[in-house]
């Protein structure tokens, strides 16, 4: 665990107790049963807004607390522990797009509402089954009032709930080219925007969204192309890695408890050396992942030049670790771990969904290597 400032410790402790009390794993089960389509509980989200979580990475000038990415990561880690559902990650990523690429007017219009949680934001980037920011094809063409957007986005996290979509579009060039990308702010109620709710294995809210000649004003464009998109994505990735670290930590601790109590062959199964070594290896992976996640978040706060590299490292290691731990959680629980009644399956499903979102391990290993010219 990183060395925290006093305000960070307080934030983390507050998040921990709120999450444990107000949003235990049972809350996700309830949402799953409801099938409301948003993927989170609006009342819980209002509370998070009141606690200021949506403003942690938003400048004080625009109504946030400006505590930074490491601080927000602490909150998400705690939420990850119970698989707590909320649009906090997506909203904070949208806020990052504004903070990094918005004009003063754009910021003044949107950031205070995002900071208070009144407006839910989301990133609309990918257009196929795999994360591929370079392959954007959705077209943005000049129109009388500004721009016309035509195309479709897939797997938009919290896309059903979003009031404000940050949409990556192509103003020129061909899919695969680095130049010609612009981010647009698109209100969720824009005409021609159609959403299809996705029922995912991990019960997280997501949508496919089509843009059938959606008109936006001239000032809907943010300043900065693929570079801006990459910076925004890196913030989403680092937050997701923090959340995954929390989920993996909880999955590990639950499994460890089981190892200490389940008896077979007259022994607590945690006394079997083969399981002990596997548990120890999970601990090693968790600690390495924690170091990478905290370093990535700190690098974003410091705007360090190697932040992108550290984010890919963090997302990869959090992914590998959660992958391993969620598999071992099922296996070490044996039959009971295969039942829907037990939480193991929930962590397993979340693991794969979180791995795939914003680039899986293979994507980030490749990106890490490319960033090092390898």
């Amino acid at each position: 665990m990183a060395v925290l400032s006093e305000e960070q410790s307080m934030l983390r402790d507050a998040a921990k107790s709120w999450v444990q009390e107000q949003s235990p794993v049972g809350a996700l089960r309830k949402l799953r049963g409801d099938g409301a389509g948003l993927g989170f509980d609006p009342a819980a989200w209002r509370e998070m807004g009141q606690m200021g979580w949506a403003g942690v990475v938003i400048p004080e000038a625009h109504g946030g607390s400006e505590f930074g990415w490491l601080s927000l990561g602490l909150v998400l880690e705690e939420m990850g522990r119970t698989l707590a559902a909320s649009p906090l990650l997506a909203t904070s990523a949208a806020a990052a797009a504004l903070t990094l690429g918005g004009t003063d007017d754009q910021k003044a219009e949107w950031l205070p509402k995002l900071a208070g949680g009144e407006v839910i934001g989301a990133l609309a980037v990918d257009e196929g089954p795999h994360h591929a920011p370079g392959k954007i094809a959705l077209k943005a063409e000049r129109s009388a009032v500004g721009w016309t957007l035509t195309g479709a986005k897939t797997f938009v996290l919290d896309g059903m709930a979003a009031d404000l979509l940050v949409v990556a579009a192509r103003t020129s060039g061909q899919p695969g080219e680095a130049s010609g990308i612009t981010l647009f702010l698109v209100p969720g109620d824009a005409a021609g925007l159609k959403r299809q709710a996705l029922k995912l294995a991990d019960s997280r809210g997501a949508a496919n969204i089509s843009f059938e000649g959606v008109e936006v004003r001239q000032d809907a464009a943010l300043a900065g192309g693929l570079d801006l998109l990459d910076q925004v994505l890196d913030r989403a990735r680092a937050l997701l890695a923090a959340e995954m670290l929390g989920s993996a930590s909880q999955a590990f601790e639950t499994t460890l408890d089981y190892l200490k109590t389940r008896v077979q062959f007259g022994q607590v199964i945690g006394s079997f050396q083969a399981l002990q070594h596997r548990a120890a290896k999970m601990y090693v992976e968790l600690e390495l992942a924690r170091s990478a996640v905290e370093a990535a978040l700190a690098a974003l706060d410091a705007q360090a030049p190697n932040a992108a590299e550290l984010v890919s490292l963090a997302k990869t290691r959090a992914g590998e670790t959660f992958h391993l731990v969620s598999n071992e959680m099922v296996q070490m629980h044996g039959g009971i771990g295969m039942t829907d009644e037990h939480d193991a399956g929930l962590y397993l499903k979340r693991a794969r969904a979180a791995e795939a979102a914003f680039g899986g391990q293979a994507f980030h290993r490749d990106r890490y290597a490319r960033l090092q010219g390898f």
Partner: protein
Amino acid sequence: MADFGASDLDAFRTEVREWLAANYPPELRDGGAPTDPEAIWGGRRFEGSDDPQIVWMRRVAERGWTAPSWPKEYGGAGLSREQARIIEKELAAGGYRVPLASFGVWMLGPVLLEYASEEQKREHLPKIVRGEIRWCQGYSEPGAGSDLASLQTRCEDAGEHWKINGQKVWTSYADKADWCFCLVRTDTSKKHEGISFVLIDMSSPGVETRPIRLISGESPFCETFFNDVLVPKNNLVGRVNGGWDIAKRLLQYERQNISGGFGAGGGAGGVAGDLAQVAKDYVGTDEEGRLEDADLRARITRNKMDVHALQLTMARIAAEQKASNGPSAVTSIVKYAAASFAQERSELMVEAMGSQGLGWSGEGFSPDELRATRGWLRSKGNSIEGGTSEVNLNVIAKRVLGLPDPK
């Protein structure tokens, strides 16, 4: 059993081929009319049914070909192993539906033949062959998973009957089965030597089943409760407290059966389809036709090679066993390897599909994609059911490699 030469076998093959062609219900040809997928398991529910699948089962059973190597007096066809294999191959080669899927044929029958009384054989075996009774397996309990012998379901002497109290878990299709072969405790003062093997009619008063919902959303298993269930005395197989040997022998048949299903790299939950082709479809290829994601390509290739090596191993085991007329030690690796390769294959399948491999239901996902997701989840059970991978490794270490227990 008659001793057949090669030319006799050829004649037999021709006979089988002709009979199958002549007797296959026309409704089932070329995909045919939809029939109840449960029908191939048979059982009381299908008594009097004219479902063509059931008709097919009855015709095959009449010749004893649902259990071809069992003696004729118990309903089998009394055929040799070679002949039985010919029937199996001709059924597969001709694209015929499986006439009967049955824990009775695969697991219970073989141990009844070895351990049961003449009366028990005459009572139960013919009904198994004819698919009249569907059996389930009452082995695992909540506190007895890998350590099966710690089971606690009590079986007490109640004069005319045995009285059974306790709970089983992971009973496959208990909610659809007619009878259950069950391990019970007849002596609480000993562990392995206090276990007996009894046959229980699931329609007896006091039997209750409750399906278990799995992480994949399916419910192929049940919890099964026995409350003061009375079982006739002669439903105990072998001797009282002598059930552990029968239990172990039956597990051997079960493992063979589970392992046999893994040959194609599938295993319970695995979805069909060429993993490489799926990856190409969802990820794309470079100008040389290779998968665009080189990292994923290398891992998929490893898995394909794993599965290939396992298939070669199973062929080798079959050849060795045929040559030596005895079991091969190599069999011990099959379940472990098959489970781990099948699980990895399922992982790669959903990884290749990306976000399309993460759907649960509803729009936005094709049926194949949803099957891949659920198949991936179901495959996690491969390394747990029928002996965990940890137990498999223990067995290899101790029985095959001769490594000792700690002092």
